[in-house]
């Protein structure tokens, strides 16, 4: 279990509180739980890497972005195979997670992309990462975590989808 800090946008709190009287409630638990966050190590000169983690939402949220001191740009990306081609795309509307759902950001799927690294991210380092979510009532929610750095040469989880891709045509 990772220790993390949740900061709700105070202004949103006040507005919602004034209008609704009952807000997104004073949670006995944080609205999201983050587990097993890690970042893939880089070598000097490598400009980007990925952060991977599991997110469990206790209310419907959308992961819309993030911040980290190790990279000026953070984007939420999806990797997918289309036939034998690899495609990576930034998710324009973020990653929506329903109440009670757990979504894994792991190799072969979603990841948090850390871009324009000024220097290498090394094994042994802890990478502070703030993840920004929006809730259904328009609140912003910042969650602070620390991700361990794992070696570059490490195997991701074996890809689960079976079947052979389409090789080149003869």
């Amino acid at each position, binding site marked *: 279990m990772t220790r993390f800090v949740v900061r709700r946008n105070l202004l949103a709190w006040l507005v919602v509180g004034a209008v609704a009287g009952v807000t997104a409630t004073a949670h006995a638990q944080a609205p999201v739980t983050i587990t097993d966050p890690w970042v893939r190590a880089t070598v000097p000169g*490598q400009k980007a890497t990925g952060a991977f983690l599991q997110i469990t939402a206790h209310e419907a949220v959308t992961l819309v972005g993030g911040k980290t001191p190790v990279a000026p740009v953070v984007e939420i990306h999806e990797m997918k195979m289309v036939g034998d081609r690899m495609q990576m795309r930034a998710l324009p509307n973020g990653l929506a997670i329903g109440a009670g759902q757990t979504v894994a950001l792991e190799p072969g799927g979603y990841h948090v992309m850390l871009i324009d690294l000024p220097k290498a991210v090394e094994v042994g380092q802890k990478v502070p990462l703030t993840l920004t979510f929006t809730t259904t009532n328009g609140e912003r929610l910042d969650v602070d975590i620390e991700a361990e750095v794992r070696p570059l040469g490490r195997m991701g989880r074996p890809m689960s989808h079976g079947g052979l891709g389409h090789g080149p045509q003869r």
Partner: protein
Amino acid sequence: MGRFIGALRRIIWVLLCAVVLSACSDRASFHAQEITGAEFGRDFALPDTEGQVRRLADFRGEVVALYFGFIQCPDVCPTALARAVEVKRLLGAQGERFRVVFITVDPERDRPGVVRAYLDAFDPTFVGLIPPDAATLEATAKAFRVFYRKVPTGASYTMDHTATTFVYDPKGKLRLAVPHAMGATQFAEDVARLLAEAP
């Protein structure tokens, strides 16, 4: 009655043939897609991270696994390279005759120094090839029927690319197309089979 015996004989004969044939095809089939005799991917001639031009002939006697990718990629490329490390480990002593060659489709960002450092993180014997210009990259990709495309993302760009690994036998003939999703164990079995083929 005689007709019945004849029919039975025929059935047994057919069954026997089926067993023999399936045994043969079992022995002859690879986990990966076999592309023996393919009209593409005959050779390459590209500078490595030390600036030396490398060709397929440099790796005679080895099974070569050739992969196109780019190192600013957080996902598929490290996964494919980590799988190659695992294949080599599974091959044991035979692993010395397994050669990984990585061609970048992003030579603009993947300069020799960073490619070398990146591959060293997996295995120092992995060879990195860097097309010296866009025209060479295009010609190489075309020769291998490999697709690549630069795609802008919010802050920079990423590359879509074919994630198939091409495998050559020790004589330098293109034999297999290994899909990205295939596991290391099956890959290693295929490589072992190629290494065991009569010279």
